[in-house]
């Protein structure tokens, strides 16, 4: 018992002691594990807290995700009031993988039934082609897509694509241009801003106004139809900023259907075409002659006899047997008077001034279709003489429009632009003529509309001033009877804000024009209609009728009427 007890005691002591050691070890391990776990949980808790408190929501990421979703496709083009001129819409295009197509004959037959414009044979060759991918039809309508879905043909699929849509169709075709089937700009703004339109996602805002553009188009088209003309063009420009408000050229086209169109239809006459501008040039000639100080407003020139230069004979369209002062020469649009003025000025000075107006180099505009002027290689007396009344120098309508804008706006030449001016953007310009000359020119232009060849352009209440230009067209080295008629005007003349140019190519005179195919009968009435329709839109306050522009105007008027 004792032994046993001893033994037991011994054993229990042994056990007790070994038990204690084991417990120690176990405890240690437990502590280690617990510490490890606690550390882990602290890390997790810390991370949780970090996520919930520090980075909660992370709004920036959300916004940028929305942004990136939005960044699909080519940016829109809008007019100055935000009207959509070009936009990209998502459509589905149909393709086939000929290697997977099971029954090409059946597929071709069924597809040609859905798409009337695709014929069976072409479809069949496409579907049997030894390739992995062929386009069958680009830009399906949702209905067509549904029909094809319904066929359940193997090896035929849809690819999400973009299609460029021009909701205004013809209206701005020449300016906006168009894109090819892969959405790359091929002409107009679409081409010149191709990079920006694909990279930047804000709509591109132009300076054009669709309402004004429509009026210009409507009125010019009416004249083209009425006088059976070949085409024409028109420009409305803000003379204080150089922004183009409307830019039209005819014939125009539907930008959705450019395949198979003749080149002439895609030709933007207003910017690419260069013409001998005719009498409209006399605005510049008179302005530069007066500005040089060499010719004074009351200088008198004998305009009764035609001028002979070699084999040329320069005569007047409305001959007057008189010794005329400058307002009379301008009013009667006397070629002889103009020639005498630039002869007094000298070739060099004349040329230098025309250069200042930017007539010798292609104008800078946000369009790829810009025509370069045709300038005589050698500049002799005879060149200066003919250029003084608008022959022998071919410039684009845009160039003359911009030059005349500088004449009426106080003498500052600005760069024409198609992008809308930002709110705080300042436009720069160079002075080409003095403020005083500009004022005189406004009075002279007003005189032409009140009492001269531009009477048909007198839009009552809007104080229009301008100059007619009827130029014979040159073909194969001879001047033909066909005319290019134009009217260049600005309004209101007391403080010009807008320049309006209308040109009609080869009109045929009819009863309404008393058989005349001249600017005064064709282009001037168009300008009158354009001005009376757009002035209220553009917020031009009508002035009481027949208010004089300036005291000087009354003097001009008296001298001009004194002779009649």
């Amino acid at each position, binding site marked *: 018992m004792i032994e046993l007890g001893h033994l037991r005691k011994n054993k229990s002591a042994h056990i007790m002691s070994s038990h204690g050691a084991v417990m120690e070890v176990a405890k240690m391990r437990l502590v280690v594990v*617990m510490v490890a*776990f*606690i550390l882990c*949980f602290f890390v*997790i*808790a810390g991370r*949780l807290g970090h*996520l*919930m408190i520090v980075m909660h929501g992370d709004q920036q990421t*959300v916004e940028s*995700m*929305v942004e990136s*979703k*939005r960044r699909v496709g080519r940016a*829109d083009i809008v007019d100055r009031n935000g*009207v*959509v*001129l070009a*936009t*990209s*819409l*998502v459509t589905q295009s149909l393709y086939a993988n000929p290697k997977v197509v099971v029954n090409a004959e059946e597929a071709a037959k069924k597809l040609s039934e859905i798409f009337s414009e695709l014929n069976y044979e072409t479809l069949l060759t496409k579907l049997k082609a030894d390739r992995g991918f062929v386009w069958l039809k680009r830009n399906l309508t949702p209905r067509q897509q549904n029909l094809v879905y319904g066929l359940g043909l193997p090896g035929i699929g849809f690819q999400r694509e973009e299609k460029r*849509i021009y*909701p*205004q*169709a*013809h*209206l701005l075709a020449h300016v906006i241009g168009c894109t090819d089937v892969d959405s790359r700009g091929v002409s107009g703004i679409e081409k010149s801003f191709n990079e920006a339109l694909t990279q930047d996602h804000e709509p591109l805002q132009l300076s054009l106004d*669709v*309402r004004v*553009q*429509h*009026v210009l*188009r*409507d009125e010019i088209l009416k004249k083209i139809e009425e006088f059976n003309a070949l085409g024409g063009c028109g420009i409305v420009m803000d003379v204080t900023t150089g922004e183009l408000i409307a830019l039209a050229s005819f014939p125009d086209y539907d930008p959705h259907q450019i395949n198979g169109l003749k080149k002439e239809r895609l030709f933007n006459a207003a910017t690419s075409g260069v013409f001998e501008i005719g009498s409209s040039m006399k605005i510049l000639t008179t302005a530069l002659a007066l500005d040089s100080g060499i010719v004074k407003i009351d200088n008198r020139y004998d305009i009764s006899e035609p001028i002979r230069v070699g084999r040329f004979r320069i005569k007047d369209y409305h001959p007057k047997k008189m010794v005329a002062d400058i307002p009379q020469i301008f009013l009667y649009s006397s070629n002889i008077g103009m020639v005498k003025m630039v002869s007094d000025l000298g070739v060099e000075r004349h040329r230098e001034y025309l250069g200042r107006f930017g007539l010798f180099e292609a104008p800078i505009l946000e369009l790829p279709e810009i025509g370069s002027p045709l300038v005589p290689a050698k500049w002799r007396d005879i060149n200066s003489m003919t250029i003084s009344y608008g022959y022998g120098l071919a410039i684009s309508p845009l160039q003359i429009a911009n030059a005349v804008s500088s004449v009426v706006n106080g003498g500052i030449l600005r760069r024409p632009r198609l992008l809308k001016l930002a709110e705080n953007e300042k436009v720069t310009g160079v002075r080409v003529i003095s403020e005083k000359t500009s004022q005189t020119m406004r009075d002279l232009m007003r005189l032409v509309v009140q009492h001269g060849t531009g009477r048909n352009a007198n839009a*009552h*209440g*809007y104080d229009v001033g301008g100059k007619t230009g009827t130029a014979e067209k040159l073909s194969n080295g001879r001047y033909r009877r066909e005319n290019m008629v134009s009217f260049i005007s600005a309004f209101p003349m007391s403080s010009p804000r807008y320049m309006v140019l209308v040109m009609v190519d080869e009109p045929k005179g009819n009863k309404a024009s008393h058989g005349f195919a001249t600017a005064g009968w064709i282009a001037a009435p168009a300008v009158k209609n354009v001005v*009376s*329709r757009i002035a*209220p839109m553009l917020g031009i*306050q*009508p002035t009481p*009728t027949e208010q004089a522009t300036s005291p000087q105007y009354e003097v001009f008027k008296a001298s001009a009427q004194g002779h009649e």
Partner: protein
Amino acid sequence: MKLTPFIVMSLFAIILGVVLFQVKYRVAALEVELGRIHQLIHDGQEAIKVLNAEWSYLTEPQRLQNLSDKFLTLKPMQPAQIVSLAEVLGVLEEEAKVQQKMVSHASEEMP
């Protein structure tokens, strides 16, 4: 007694675990929601584009002019239809004077 820290720790761990899972599920649910909203925004934007294009097409000036010629008798505005605010105020003033005169005239006659 020795168990107390262990129990406290386990409770803490359990609570953390539960919270973690809940947060995780909420995040997952929110992500699904976010994706859905993105899709909605995208669809909305595409629909806006289509509608804008359609609006521009329907308000194309030539179309409006044709419709106006067909259904309305509107004509381009004439300068005589536009008057300045000063003129309007002048007319109102005249009107007021006439009214006043009539009133004073009437009140003189009344008694």
